[in-house]
């Protein structure tokens, strides 16, 4: 095997998968902001490509582990690739979930969406974009920024919850729609959480420090 080329390919494929997942999240947000059901339908359908990439990346990482005997930075990178790979696939699933929930929402009585939902969606997307840039540039400072952003996302999710608490008693007929809004908010909050996990994986790759479950 050509160890160095396979390692480079692995990196390239993971970044490509990241770009594809980011595009999927952006499309889901556009669908919600522009009330674009076609865009939502596209996001809902297009998961196979991400699933295929996930399997290919995992196979390539396993091959490198088995045949290349990686150590040090290479070992940390491959272990993190395996984790980031499934984390990205999960984000793809969550983007699909957002699109599905939005399509369901459109069947109910129309309600004005809370600003906190769109702010939350954009904040989660920014965290994802930043962490992918940090992965590409091995940028620890940007990873720390992503970790700090998670607090704002939690605040925004709480703001959506407050909105629902006030909206449901006011318009009981909009209860089902409000539940869909809460479900969408929860999915974007999960995307932000996963972006934070990826930031911690990138810090592990670059510095060899395990910062999960710590405030470092």
């Amino acid at each position, binding site marked *: 095997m050509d160890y160095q080329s396979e390692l480079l390919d692995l990196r390239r494929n993971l970044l490509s998968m990241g770009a594809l997942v980011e595009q999927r999240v952006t499309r889901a947000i556009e669908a919600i902001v522009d009330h674009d059901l076609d865009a939502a339908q596209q996001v809902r359908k297009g998961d196979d490509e991400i699933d295929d990439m996930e399997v290919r990346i995992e196979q390539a990482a396993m091959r490198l582990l088995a045949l290349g005997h990686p*150590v040090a930075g*290479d070992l940390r990178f491959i272990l993190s690739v395996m984790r980031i790979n499934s984390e990205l696939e999960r984000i793809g699933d969550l983007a699909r979930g957002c699109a599905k929930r939005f399509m369901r929402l459109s069947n109910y009585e129309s309600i004005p969406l809370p600003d906190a939902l769109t702010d939350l969606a954009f904040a989660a997307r920014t965290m994802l974009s930043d962490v992918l840039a940090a992965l590409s540039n091995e940028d620890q400072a940007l990873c720390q920024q992503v970790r700090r952003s998670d607090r704002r996302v939690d605040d925004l999710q709480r703001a959506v919850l407050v909105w629902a608490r006030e909206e449901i008693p006011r318009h009981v007929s909009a209860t089902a729609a409000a539940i869909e809004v809460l479900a969408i908010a929860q999915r974007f909050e999960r995307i932000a959480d996963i972006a934070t996990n990826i930031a911690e994986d990138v810090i592990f790759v670059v510095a*060899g420090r395990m910062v999960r479950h710590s405030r470092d």
Partner: protein
Amino acid sequence: MTPASTMEHTPTHLDVASSPTRSAESETPGTPAIMVGKFSAWYGAFQALHEVTLEIPARGVTAFIGPSGCGKSTFLRWINRMNDTIVSARAEGVLSLHGEDLLSRSLDVVDLRRRVGMVFQKPNPFPKSIFDNVAFGPRLHRVYSRNDLEELVEQSLRSAALWNEVKDRLHSSALGLSGGQQQRLCIARAIAVGPEVVLMDEPCSALDPKSSASIEDLIRDLRARYTIIIVTHNLQQASRVSDMTAFFYEGKLIESGLTELVFTNPSQKQTEDYVTGRFG
């Protein structure tokens, strides 16, 4: 630490005096057995080692890694004064075993080699019986009683995980053993004289994977009783068997530390590049 000393080549002669100064059992795991301070070595005008400073813990396995010509074998050979046979070899700095200056001209080299055993790349049993190979060292150190010798040979062969395979043919030629068995016999021969330190210079490089695995198992078993230093080009082997790893490059000690750290998060870029196969 002992004061720095210098040493020129001094021819030595074998002497059968046995003076066990310290038993391996008296060492505490983790405390330094060998102290090295600003140790430099030359072959004539060529400087093979540059001011190496290192502590080698007792009762554990330390691996020396590095590309060919980096000085790791030279360093190993200074620990039991194998370089005494090379006229142009000289060294300076601190090299001590439990505080005893290994570079001292007055050091009893025969006794040192009892305390510091060595296992070489290719198994080198003597053309004698299995029993006589293991009994060779003890006899040299004046163990003559048949009962004592039999007990020592059995203990050593058991420690080297070879007893069950050879107990019924102890008086057959050692040359009839397989490569892996011969190497375990050489380890039994090295430990029969009760060394504190066992040096291993590429002990598995001439063996097939199964025999290598059995030697690695043996090294893991022996680490509780002996201070083991292994020179190896096989990085996977170093990472599997050693507690500490020291990386040498161009005669300099670049990095040393816990093997787990050296192989997962080395502090020096040269170490990272070497262990990931980017050079060497």
